[in-house]
């Protein structure tokens, strides 16, 4: 078997294969529904209704999409530079920790200042968390996939320690939870009566910002060059190490903002289950978006919809919510294959 690049893939190929991937994902969803003994169409219908069928559902989807946009951006930025940041989970929690530290009254700042300050330091914390594995990669050639993954577990244990110890909520009735944020530290709602908080809009701004950086700034050009061919970049005189570090800082910072947004916007405090895997789901979001920052918004909404819809459907007819996770993993694999097939032809030899 030989893969032959197609010189001029038409619109048919470029759109057709990804569409087929989504179709395959759909078929897989129906197969899982059948396996669960439910009517596939009913399952699908309930999922769609649960994701977008009412104002409440829609807002829930947007809320769920917010951290996914941030982690999706973090992963997209990193993967584009061939920095395999699988540690968005740890960076998210680092951001959340700092948000709580600064937001429970320690800083006597009024809210117009407190929020940006907490965001900045949260991002810094996430940036520092990724800096470790990035430096290990640059200095020692240690594969960052494993180091970032292992660090996720370390961070989770650290959060557990904090929540049972120094950051424990004295009024928490024993359940490991941090203190609540003071009002000034909370992200306000976008409109009175809506459950949607400003974090969503800030996520959109972040996506736009990343897009601008990637296409219009020298840093974006450098990151893309290093990601595509670090050897050629080094030969041409680009400071590859420095660019990787900047990429790591940007990526870690973005992931941390997911944690900041969840704590300051949605939850108001830190718990161990703050993130049901947003860091890992961010990988799926980023890959489905082809690492394009604007695409990340779209795919984050899609993925969030699937999860929110699955939750709602599961409450209604009992198919396990894990159907969403399975779907998304399948979507990732289908999509990555489809993207290849849209660019190459399979030849006999």
């Amino acid at each position, binding site marked *: 078997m*030989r893969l032959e690049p197609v010189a001029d893939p038409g619109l048919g190929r470029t759109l057709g294969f990804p569409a087929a991937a989504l179709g395959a994902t759909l078929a897989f969803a129906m197969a899982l529904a059948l396996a669960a003994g439910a009517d596939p169409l009913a399952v699908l219908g309930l999922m769609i209704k649960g994701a977008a069928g009412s104002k409440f559902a829609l807002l829930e989807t947007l809320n769920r999409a917010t951290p996914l946009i941030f982690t999706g951006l973090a992963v997209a930025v990193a993967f584009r530079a061939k920095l395999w940041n699988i540690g968005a989970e740890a960076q998210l929690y680092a951001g959340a920790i700092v948000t709580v530290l600064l937001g429970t009254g320690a800083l006597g700042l009024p809210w117009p200042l407190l929020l940006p300050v907490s965001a900045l330091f949260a991002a810094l914390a996430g940036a520092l968390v990724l800096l470790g594995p990035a430096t290990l990669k640059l200095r020692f050639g240690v594969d960052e996939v494993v180091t970032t993954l292992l660090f996720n577990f370390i961070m989770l244990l650290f959060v557990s320690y904090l929540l049972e110890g120094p950051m424990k909520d004295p009024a928490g009735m024993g359940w490991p939870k941090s203190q609540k944020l003071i009002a000034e530290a909370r992200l306000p709602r976008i409109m009175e009566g809506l459950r949607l908080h400003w974090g969503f809009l800030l996520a959109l701004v972040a996506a736009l910002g990343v897009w601008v950086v990637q296409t219009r700034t*020298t840093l974006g050009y450098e990151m*893309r060059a290093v990601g595509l061919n670090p050897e*050629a970049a080094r030969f041409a005189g680009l400071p590859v190490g420095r660019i990787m570090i900047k990429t790591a800082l940007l990526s870690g910072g973005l992931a941390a903002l997911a944690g900041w947004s969840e704590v300051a916007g949605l939850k108001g405090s830190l718990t161990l289950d703050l993130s049901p895997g947003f860091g890992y789901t961010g990988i799926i979001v980023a890959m489905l978006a082809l690492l394009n920052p604007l695409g990340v918004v779209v795919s984050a909404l899609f993925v969030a919809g699937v999860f929110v819809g699955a939750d709602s459907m599961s409450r209604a007819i009992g198919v396990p919510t894990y159907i969403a996770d399975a779907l998304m993993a399948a979507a990732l694999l289908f999509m990555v294959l489809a993207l290849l097939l849209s660019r190459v032809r399979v030849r006999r030899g």
Partner: protein
Amino acid sequence: MGGQAQARVVLRLSGITKRFGPLVANDAITFDLHEGEVIALLGENGAGKTTLMNILFGHYSADEGAVELFGAPLAPGNPRAALAAGVGMVHQHFTLADNLTVMENIVLGTEPLWRLGRGRAAARRRVEELSRDFGLAVHPDARVGSLSVGERQRVEILKALYREARILILDEPTAVLTPQEADDLFATLRKAVARGMSVIFISHKLHEVMAISSRVLVLRHGKLVGEVRTADTDRHQLATLMVGAEVAALEVRPHAPGPVLMALRAVSTPARGNATGLKGITLDLRAGQITGLAGVSGNGQAALAALVGGLDLPEAGEMEMSGAPVEGWSPRRAVDAGVARIPEDRHKTGTIADFTLTENAILESYGDGKFSRRGWMNWRAAEGFATDIIATYDVRCPGPATRIRLLSGGNMQKLILGRVLERGPKIILANQPVRGLDIGAVTYVHQRLLRARDEGAAVLLVSEDLDEVMALSDVIHVISEGRLSPGFARGTMTPAELGVWMAGHGFEEAGHAA
């Protein structure tokens, strides 16, 4: 070499056609190989020679046509079938596993996978016998990763002999050998032919083809355009067949050298991994002069190119530019100091495949005020720059927004040339500048380098092709194991004499004049 007309046909290719997308790599090729013949498959880069042999060996299947070996049809697309039928191939890029020993590489794939244990003793005896009979000295237990290029090639040949090849294909075998090693190879081939083997020999070197073959097949743009007996032809005719037109000889006007623009005095660099370091070399690059570096690959060329190009620093000795010592050397500094670097591998190091022509054009200069300011890119200026290069350097492409991976090797090289020459460099490092290019692109690149030299640049030409070095250079140094010979002025040395230096002799005399 034997009366071919009476000898039996051992290989017959009939109407072999192979397409890669829109490119027709082989177009209805038909020929016979007789027992005991040595056929040279001649053609410039991109003519389809390697593709044809890959089809014969089974790496590819032909889209049309058939292969008959010893009268029986050959199952396509399967090296196993070709090997079983008696075809052996010495690839241009050796197919050896560096982590295994010589013996292990040779027996790889010769025993059934599901057998427990390996029959080592008999295999070893056989290899030693073959090694003696064919003059291919190897250490059976040496790790291939530690072998020299010449030794590796011997292992490649032994692999084929061990599998009882009756037809031996060699793809550009002398590209990486010294003239003496090439002679040893030819001696081995003669022994093979004396034992009834037949040889197909891919080359683009006319003097070798004339020396070793009994018949020459010329390919051009995928078609077989000529089939002649070596005795009946000459280099001029072959060159014309290869190119399809009269080949203009390269015009090199004598030029008085100018001041020394870069000087290396007793410079040494450490060995990096498998690559040799430099050992106390002294070199002057003069304006208006082409300094050629001759040598078998792997003798320090990479180290010297890295040094001049800014990727490495001298560990000992001094480096000067225009009389002043160099401080703080890096690729960035090199570019800023007026050093143009044409890298050895345009795919790996020279270009970023998925970047557009525009993005590639400004790879070294994106930080200039012209193309970016305070962190913001000026894409309009960049595109203008790329468009200029495309026009001036005849880069065939749909436009500056095309991804460079879609361009041919020659056009890629022209873009690289353009982007470095447009800055008016003082020193040009040309590292294997025409490797893998078709004759049109080769001529173009050579002419551009000569023009740059005529306009006062100092050119350092690093090439494995001795013919190229001898044709272009005003001064030739030979590099061997990191040491540099004295400079030999144009016309004062024959290839054989240079070959002696390339093999490492001549360096015993201490101290060479600068």
